């Protein structure tokens, strides 16, 4: 037990230790060697990770905490409720859908961990509706390397529409260029003499939205542009600058929380411009949640937004309301609820189209085929060369506390904005696909 070992013994020990360590490493090398994709016999038949005889496991990353949580946390809950409803009806091809929701606090660094855990620990079949531009961009490369279907990202960034670079990634929102262009065009058509300004989030969301507005009103058509950072919950300086610039219409590329912040801050300054907002921050019930029942109807009267999903008195909305009551503990029903259920429905449709024994390849193939219809007011734009969901949006407005479509729908094709007629998809088979 003496700690002073004689030299010869120590030499023996040292050598022994080295040999043992080397043997250990060589031995271990055998047990965790990755299988090269080309050698994997399963590769020929396709990858069905996350699919069992009775279940399909998918996952998402979304803000349940942090600055974006109040505006968006109801989306994943609504999607879960729809899946519960669908599972109650027998699921898709006899399989129930298990939907794992992971919180990332709208922070790209957390998204990295959450998504790695979903893919590597929980072994999900696909990532569905990962929320946020900056957050999802941080995992785009990782999902591509692991060939995980990355369906219906909850963001309107044009990054998701790069079929050559990211063949497995598909967007869900109408992209921000489309939304900006539609709002810009609507302003130009209806209020040609008013000065248009933009308040945008300090990332691709803001950049692309501005690009869209410029598409409609021209590069010189924007009077003033201001940016905000999500990590700073104060937009007084930006609102002051917009007011000083004499803005009459302010187009917002803001998430719900910051839409409310901008509108509220302006009201406090006694300034009431006309507000236009992208669909990501234009949900009236959510904004009421932020601004309060007393203030909201006053400051949000005439609030103009965009949307591409069913609204107000629609048969989809009626069914979603029932699902919400039964499977979501009658949680407050808002635009996010409709959004979440619509995404979930579209996934179910894609899964049904992927066949009896779905593989990741078949799922991606089903979406790129262009055969999915979804439930929007315009046809889905998915196809072999397009991973964008919607190329157009309808203009909405708030009147007496009710948000609904106006008679104005715009589409952006080949860099030009044009007015189109909406063609809503009718509800079929109680929103249970695959029959």
């Amino acid at each position, binding site marked *: 037990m003496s700690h*002073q070992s004689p030299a010869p013994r120590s030499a023996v020990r040292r050598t022994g230790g080295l040999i043992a360590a080397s043997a250990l490493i060589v031995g271990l090398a055998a047990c965790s060697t990755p299988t*090269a994709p080309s050698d994997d016999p399963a590769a020929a038949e396709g990858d069905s990770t996350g699919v069992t005889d009775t279940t399909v496991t998918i996952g998402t990353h979304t803000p349940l905490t942090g600055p974006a949580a109040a505006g968006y946390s109801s989306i994943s809950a609504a999607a879960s409720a729809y899946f519960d409803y669908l599972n109650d009806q027998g699921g898709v091809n006899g399989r129930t859908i298990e939907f794992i929701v992971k919180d990332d606090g709208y922070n790209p*660094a957390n998204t990295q961990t959450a998504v790695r855990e979903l893919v590597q620990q929980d072994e999900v079949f696909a990532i569905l509706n990962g929320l946020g531009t900056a957050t999802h961009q941080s995992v785009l490369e990782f999902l591509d390397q692991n060939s995980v279907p990355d369906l219906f990202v909850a963001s309107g960034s044009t990054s998701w529409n790069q079929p050559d670079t990211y063949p497995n990634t598909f967007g869900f929102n109408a992209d921000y260029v489309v939304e900006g262009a539609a709002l810009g065009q609507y302003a130009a058509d209806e209020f040609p003499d008013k000065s248009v300004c933009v308040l945008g989030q300090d990332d691709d969301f803001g950049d692309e939205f501005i690009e869209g507005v410029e598409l409609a009103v021209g590069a010189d058509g924007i009077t003033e542009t201001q940016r905000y*950072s999500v990590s700073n919950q104060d937009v007084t300086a930006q609102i002051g600058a917009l007011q000083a610039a004499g803005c009459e219409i302010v187009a917002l590329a803001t998430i719900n929380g910051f839409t409310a912040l901008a509108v509220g801050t302006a009201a406090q300054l006694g300034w009431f411009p006309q507000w236009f907002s992208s669909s990501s921050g234009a949900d009236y019930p959510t904004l009421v949640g932020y601004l309060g029942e007393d203030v909201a109807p006053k400051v949000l009267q005439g609030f103009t937004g965009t949307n591409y999903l069913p609204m107000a008195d629609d048969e989809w909305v009626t069914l979603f309301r029932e699902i919400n009551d039964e499977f979501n503990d009658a949680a407050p029903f808002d635009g996010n609820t409709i959004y979440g259920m619509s995404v979930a429905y579209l996934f179910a449709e894609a899964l049904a189209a992927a066949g009896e024994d779905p593989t990741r390849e078949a799922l991606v193939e089903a979406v790129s085929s262009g055969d999915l219809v979804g439930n929007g007011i315009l046809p889905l734009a998915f196809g072999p060369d397009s991973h964008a969901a919607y190329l157009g949006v309808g203009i909405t407005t708030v009147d007496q506390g009710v948000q609904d479509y106006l008679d104005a729908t715009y589409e952006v094709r080949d860099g030009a904005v044009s007015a189109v007629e909406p063609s809503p998809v009718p509800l079929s088979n109680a929103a249970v696909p695959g029959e």
Partner: protein
Amino acid sequence: MTGRRVPRLLPGLTGTRRVLVTAVVLTVLALGGTFLLDPFRNFQLATAAAYLCAVAGLTLLIGLSGQLSLGHAALMAAGGYGYALTSNALTDAGLDGLPRFLASLVAAVVIACLLGLLLGLAAARLRGPYLAGLTLALVIALPAITSVWSPVFRGDQGLQTAYNPVPTALERLIAVEQWQAWVAILVASVVVTALTIVRRGTLGLRMRAVRDDETAARLNGVPARSVKVAAFTVSAAAAGAGGAVLCFITQSVSPGGYTLAFSLLLVVAAIVGGLGSIGGAVIGSMVIVVLPWLLGAGTAALDLPAELEQRLSGNLAVLVFGALLIAVMLLRPDGLAGLAGAWRRRRARRGGSALPRAATTPPAAADSLDPAGVADTSGHSRTIPIER
């Protein structure tokens, strides 16, 4: 672990040579250990290794030189941004692979070093809460800095960097995450070894002298200001390397990854592990990686109501870290690393075979373990118990 100290295998070696040999052995073991882990755990290991760089630097700064930094996340961010900017510039210039990685790593360390030097110059004039305030301001200002210069730093979205694939020679042997863990371990081991050598050397001795009694140190000819600046710079360099590794693993850097909460987490890791102890830094960085994940898995397994789970998510870890910090301060002021020392001392007493050094190590003096490690300038002996 057999309880036997690693250096005892190599009694002939002393000083820096022993540090180096120990480092090589431990590194090889850690690299071998990655074969036991699945990809996600290797990712966690790589993350822990990146944190280790920063925590080891921080533990040296707080534990040895007695200066508290609440802004180490910002120094890591400096490394991360330095890495990303250099890596992207080099990618545009057509460089990739190992040269790109090494050049970016060096740039990251240099940038963090410069920032650390600036902070250190200020720190040498400040004490305790004032220094804490300064470093705190830096980490709080980080999102504003990245927003103001958003053409360079791209605001909240941060920077994305090119992916470093597994080298062709290793492609069939290891997976990406394992490769990333290897790189992280190698960088961490270089950083930690360098810090250990600094700690054992003249600079380390001077840091302790300055920490214990600055006036006495000055009277003995120790250039106290320079020592404090050097401590900050060395510690910042380590944090910068950590930030670079984190950016290498995740291929991105954004202000959201380097919040005040993260800065505090690094301090928690240093304290829970054991202030001033490199071994403690290893334990601490493991704890801050594994604990939130364990808690997340635990709450998920409990099948709690959705609303409660939502409330706990993201908050529970902070709560547990706070509780852990208090528990450690009360029960084991010398941190988890102190447990090993205490066990050795007990064993030595019982077995009768005195380990001369361990036996003469004084029991942890409570005043040496003040969480900040900076308040005490009374000049009493403030021995950090883990001396090897």
